[in-house]
């Protein structure tokens, strides 16, 4: 079997369709979430600087600190979320597709 025949066969399989559909949708959803979070943060600064400088409660710490730190934690978490689902779900699907193709 040539590689293009193999590719055509894989492409026709229901599992492959499922994998690409799910992963593409998941990947883009997270991408959009990340874009909104980051450019939201940048726009917040660009349009209303005073807001982030406002103290939280009556302390010295401004809203900018928890929001900035929160964005860092969000970035790491969302990356971890992708890995978590890929390990649990996408890898199993991929393995099934590869096994199927090898038959």
């Amino acid at each position: 079997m040539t590689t293009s025949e193999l590719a055509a066969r894989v492409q026709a399989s229901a599992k492959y369709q499922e994998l690409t559909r799910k992963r593409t949708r998941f990947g883009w959803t997270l991408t959009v979430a990340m874009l909104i979070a980051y450019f939201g943060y940048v726009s917040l600064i660009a349009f209303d600087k005073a807001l982030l400088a406002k103290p939280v409660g009556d302390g010295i710490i401004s809203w900018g600190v928890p929001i900035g730190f929160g964005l860092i934690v969000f970035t790491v978490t969302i990356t971890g979320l992708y890995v978590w689902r890929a390990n649990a779900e996408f890898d199993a699907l991929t393995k099934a597709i590869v096994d199927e193709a090898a038959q």
Partner: protein
Amino acid sequence: MRARNLLAAAALFLPLPALAAAIEGQTQRQPTNWTAIAMFAGFVALTLAITRWAAKRTHTVADFYAAGGGVTGFQNGLAIAGDYMSAASFLGISAQIFTDGYDGLIYSIGFLVGWPILMFLMAEKLRNLGRFTFADVASFRFAQPAVRSFAAFSTLTVVAFYLIAQMVGAGQLIKLLFGLPYGSAVAIVGVLMIFYVLFGGMKATTWVQITKAVLLLGGASFMSVMVMAKVGFSPESLFMRAVQVKTDLATATGLDPVAAAAKGRSIMGPGNFIKDPISAISFGMALMFGTAGLPHILMRFFTVPNAREARKSVLWATVWIGYFYLLTFIIGFGAIVLVASDPQYLDAAGALLGGGNMAAIHLAKAVGGDVFLGFISAVAFATILAVVSGLTLSGASAISHDLYATVFCKSAADSGAELRVSRITTVVLGVFAILLGVVFEKQNIAFMVSLAFALAASGNFPVLLLSLLWKGCTTRGAVVGGFAGLLTALVLMILSPSIWVTVLHHEKAIFPYTSPAIFSMAVAFLTIWLVSLLDNSPRALIDRAGFDEQRVRSETGIGASVAAGH
């Protein structure tokens, strides 16, 4: 206790920090710092041992470019972090926080947010499609010579600007830290880097980067813990004291109490870093998408055995880089509290000894004495070595793998000849890097780095993304669009205030924004789209027909090459 006395005794024999008054300029040469030099010599000895070990295991091009594909996801994540966290981030961002407070955090967040994007859209596909360079991926279904030539050109351009920034930074830093003259500092960096890459290839580069990442993260963690210990582990008290120091400094310049208090408080919120919304978003785009287009970073994805490990690499890299930027924030504020108020680190005019970038270095002394100062200085130097090695390897692979083996020999070069070419290129690039470092001594480093990111975001990123995800993309579209993006970014940078006004002394900048990315990325995407759409050449049919096969391999890894090519 005993060890402490020994250290204290050793410290007596060390040169005291410069107490000379009225130091000016960004990089005043410091008295020779022997602890730092000894620590650094230790690091060099260790990395040379690594290089010797790696050299014995580097026989094929796969070893040289991709460490034989035998790096694990965790190791690669650390190496990526080591490749990415430059001395400019460590010293530059902590210095920015030291001066302006919160603005430094905005800057560092920009360097982090590209990683998830790289993960969600590209990382696994990159590993499944490529062998050694990102051009393997970008040219997968296209006419090889054209796309490879674009990729090599773009890689060399990005690498050149990034390399100049690192070499200049290295020279100034070493002059500062070790008291060596600028020229010899640049030469030392160049020669060591040639050594690592020439003999140890990607294996040595990877382990140098891992070693550096561990040292840098360890050093920065220690510094942050010490800072927090000094303020009783209370963030409130850290920020309170920092604001107090800034207020006192403002009062000392003759401001009235209300204005001084406002100035002190200003470090808790965004300052002048973000000016107009367009500059802000454009700069954010350059950092975010530039990360996903840096050739030396993309190259690291071919060192792991499969897509699963590639995924893990990104997660670990994001964890370490995110953690590191949290630390730099504490370090920057710690420096305000402990360094800005202490006359031993200041000159008569109240400016930081040795220039603005020294904030983290002085803080090292404030929290850990001379020995820790030496350690952090050596780590800063090691940082540069790790980054320039990765850059040089990436530049060498663009010439030997993309241009020589694929375009010039039409993919018929034997492994031995290709390896020889990449080694010769490594030496040539190393010598070039030294010369560029000397020629561009006065260049603004931050500007060069932001230019490299803008170019990567405007050339490599659009080409890579559309070749991976859009069936309609053709050879002609990718090449024309890629060059259009690169050129637009370059021209707009020249017309921007940083060059048009500062360097060329024109009255007013033609392009008023700080970063071109929002425009140049749009030009790249639109051009690729339009040219591909109108492309009726016979080649375009082959390009589009190749998409399904490429997609199957990129999604499943079926047919993916394993870098181990023994």
